[in-house]
């Protein structure tokens, strides 16, 4: 397959029949989707229209799949929830608009856990399909950006995926599907047009077959946006083209991420990768992050659920999405719509999140989690005084089978995020890069850098390809 950046250059020079490529890509994506369920919606019309418009720019002629929670104008965008069925946004997310302006063509909306509520893409909305792992259809793609990761693996045409991570939803599926998942610093990419899960944690990122392609997509999407108050004004570095010189780069191996609960075969693959980095001149150190190991999961889930439970309040069948027959008072009506159209995990998080912010519990749960979050950030900040990059397995296991997942309790489910929640809670940029497989399934190494040091991740990551 043609190298993506060479392809873009050739498209700009008019060397390709983009419309023909687009038609074939769409047909191919649809046939992959039949077996693997990577898409909630195809944007047929818009995709071909964009191909016809002679795309130019840094993503000219590249098919861009968009996680369903990111709004695409005129294309059904539901965040994988039945309650938003039929909702076609009036505007493009800033990330989508910027991609489109650089010649990217929106092919469709990829499948995910409902509103991002999961790590295996099995907590899908009512009536949606579970995406299947590209290496073994009995296994999960990971989540919540499951469709994005699977499609990135399977696409035989120039393709990049817009993903989104709240607590690990980019690096987890990237690791399980054997692709690169790149989640930038919180505030690096505008959230305007992102259907909220937990606003203080949500980050739009990218997935690609290699580190530089993933970095390129972030570069295009990043930068200040007056429509998102939390979006950073810092200038965007050209980090997709940084060199791969890691002589003297200090890599911290997170001690707690290689111990109990982590599949030894997965740990070994990742350890091997760090040895490769060492061989290329990096200095390997062991580092301990005890607070994150202990409090990462509860801190993440409390904040995420509290915010989510307010974000989901707006879905009640008033103006968009699912409606029901108007009967009874407004309370009866809202309850009917929400009962009928939210999935089980959404209901669980709504109840837990509402509970944790109610008077009497608020201090013990919500406010305490906010304080812990500051402590966790401080722990990372002091770690970055001694190292440039932190390394760990992305997930403690390879992609589990659906049968295995069905036996997990909710708590065991949440515990699977133990290695990804840390950088997400702290808003740190992180990337998952495929390393040698274990049990014949992909394994990812997760690299974490300090805020706005995306370039360090690219510099390190390219050494593992």
């Amino acid at each position: 397959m043609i190298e993506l950046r060479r392809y873009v250059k050739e498209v700009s020079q008019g060397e390709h029949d983009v419309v023909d490529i687009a038609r074939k890509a769409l047909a191919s994506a649809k046939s992959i989707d039949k077996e693997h369920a990577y898409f909630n919606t195809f944007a047929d019309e818009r995709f071909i229209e964009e191909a016809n418009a002679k795309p130019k720019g840094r993503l000219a002629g590249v098919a861009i799949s968009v996680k369903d929670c990111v709004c695409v104008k005129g294309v059904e965008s539901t965040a994988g929830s039945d309650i938003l069925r039929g909702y076609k946004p009036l505007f493009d997310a800033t990330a989508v608009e910027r991609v489109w302006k650089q010649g990217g063509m929106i092919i469709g909306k990829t499948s995910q856990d409902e509103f991002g509520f999961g790590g295996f893409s099995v907590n899908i909305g009512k009536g949606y399909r579970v995406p299947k792992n590209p290496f073994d259809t009995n296994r999960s793609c990971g989540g919540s950006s499951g469709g994005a990761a699977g499609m990135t693996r399977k696409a035989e045409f120039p393709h990049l995926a817009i993903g989104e991570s709240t607590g690990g939803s980019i690096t987890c599926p990237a690791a399980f599907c054997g692709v690169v998942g790149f989640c930038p610093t919180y505030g690096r990419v505008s959230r305007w047009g992102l259907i909220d899960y937990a606003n203080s944690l949500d980050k739009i990122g990218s997935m690609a077959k290699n580190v530089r392609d993933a970095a390129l997509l972030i570069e295009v999407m990043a930068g200040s946006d007056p429509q998102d108050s939390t979006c950073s004004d810092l200038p965007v570095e050209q980090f997709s083209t940084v060199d791969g010189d890691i002589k003297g780069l200090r890599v911290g191996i997170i001690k707690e991420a290689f111990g109990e609960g982590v599949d030894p075969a997965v740990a070994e693959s990742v350890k091997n990768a760090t040895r490769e980095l060492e061989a290329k001149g990096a200095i390997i150190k062991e580092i301990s992050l005890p607070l994150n190991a202990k409090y990462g999961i509860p801190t993440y889930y409390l904040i995420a659920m509290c915010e989510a439970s307010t974000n989901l309040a707006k879905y009640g069948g008033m103006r968009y999405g699912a409606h029901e027959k108007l009967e009874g008072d407004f309370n009866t009506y809202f309850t009917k719509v929400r009962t009928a159209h939210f999935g089980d995990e959404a209901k669980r998080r709504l109840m837990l999140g509402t509970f944790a912010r109610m008077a009497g519990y608020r201090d013990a749960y919500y406010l305490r989690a906010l304080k812990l979050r500051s402590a966790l950030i401080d722990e990372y900040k002091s770690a970055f005084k001694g190292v440039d990059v932190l390394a760990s397995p992305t997930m403690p296991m390879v992609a589990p089978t659906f049968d295995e997942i069905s036996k997990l309790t909710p708590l065991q489910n949440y515990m699977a995020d133990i290695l990804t929640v840390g950088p997400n809670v702290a808003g740190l940029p992180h990337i998952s890069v495929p390393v040698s497989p274990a049990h014949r399934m992909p394994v990812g190494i997760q690299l974490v850098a300090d805020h706005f040091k995306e370039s360090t991740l690219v510099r390190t990551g390219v050494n593992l390809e």
Partner: protein
Amino acid sequence: MNFTSDVVIGLEIHVQLNTVTKLFCRCPTVAQEPNSATCPVCLGHPGSKPVLNKVALEKSTMIALAIGCAINPSMQFSRKTYFYPDMSKNYQITQFELPLAEHGNVTLDDGKVVRVKRVHMEEDPAALVHQGSADYTLVDYNRSGMPLVEIVTEPDMTTPDEAREFIKKLMHIISYLKVFDDANGIIKADANVSIKESGYTRVEIKNITGAKEIERALIVEVQRQHGSIKSGENIVQETRGWDPAVGMTRSQRKKETEDDYGYIIDPDLPTITMSKDRVEQLRALVPELGGEKATRLTQQYKIDAVDASVMAKERELGELFERVAQHVDPVLAARWMRRELRRALAAAGKDVSEVDEKLLVELLQLIDKKTITDRIGQRLVDRLVQEGISPAKVVKEEGLAAVSDESAITTVVKQVVDANPAVVAQYKAGEEKAFNFLVGQSMKALKGKGSPAVINKILKVVLG
């Protein structure tokens, strides 16, 4: 709290700011058709995000400063969650933990201080438009996201009359700051009312619109509580609604505990920090308020106290006065501006801002130097306001200068006396009115250009 008064009242006043756009989006605050001033943000569409209107923040800060509050160096917005059909997101963006400002006060005329607990910003929900007896209600989202400032007092008022005076003072301050649309802006209040006989059991009255209605609702509620006690009923802690049509409060819900809105910090809106410098810059923009200004004007310009209070109350008139007073006798300027200029403006339906300052100075100087009589002056004020004429030019072209030549006046007065022998006879018989008639006739003959004082003097001489 240890209350001792017969009645205890606390207020939460909501003032709608007169910004051009809404609090968190760029929709206009003024709209004709229902649901025409809406966008994904104020409609709560998935993926939309709020961005704070900086002008609203500044205007709110000025209100807080004007009532002596301390501005919090950092403040946050919170989400107040409850389900209601007028809420586009089913949460309201307001301020909870860290409001804009705290600890202010407003002094009433008798010197009593009403403490202000806090001042915060919040968005208004949409408006429910009920359709008479129809079994449905419409929602107008034009109001969704309108900028409100909420001023919360301590329970310091002891009569409905004090509450009315507090609101009046507050509204005066707000109108003076030009942060409120006096014509179309809306002021709403929630009031806490309790009486001694019930052991100060708190009753909250929600959603009273307009200053007059607030006093009325309070009077009615105090009467109701006293009545209940007399007839042996208990006052219960509850929320009541005010029905202005029938002039009654009605129970909406009894509550055992405080409302639980499950507040969280709104993660879409970063913490706002307000530096001391910025606060001082805004403080400098807060104009001198009514009371202090009246005192200063009286002392500085030695003008009449009534004139001073009017100049202080009407901010633009007061500012115009201080500019005009640089060129004309302030006492005369104040008197003329309060009486004649305001009368002429009201008659013409015009605003002080439309008055040409130079022409006004010109006119007042003509009056001051007695180049024209007061009566001509009055006529010219109207023409200045309506037509924007130059008084000096008109006086010259139309020959309106006062007749200062006493012999000319004497001639006219003699003619008047000769022509009215019957009236002269009445005067000589002791009728004062007859004298006034002769003065009037002389003025008329002089076309208003004769000074009444001179005419009086000459007429007395002529009549012997």
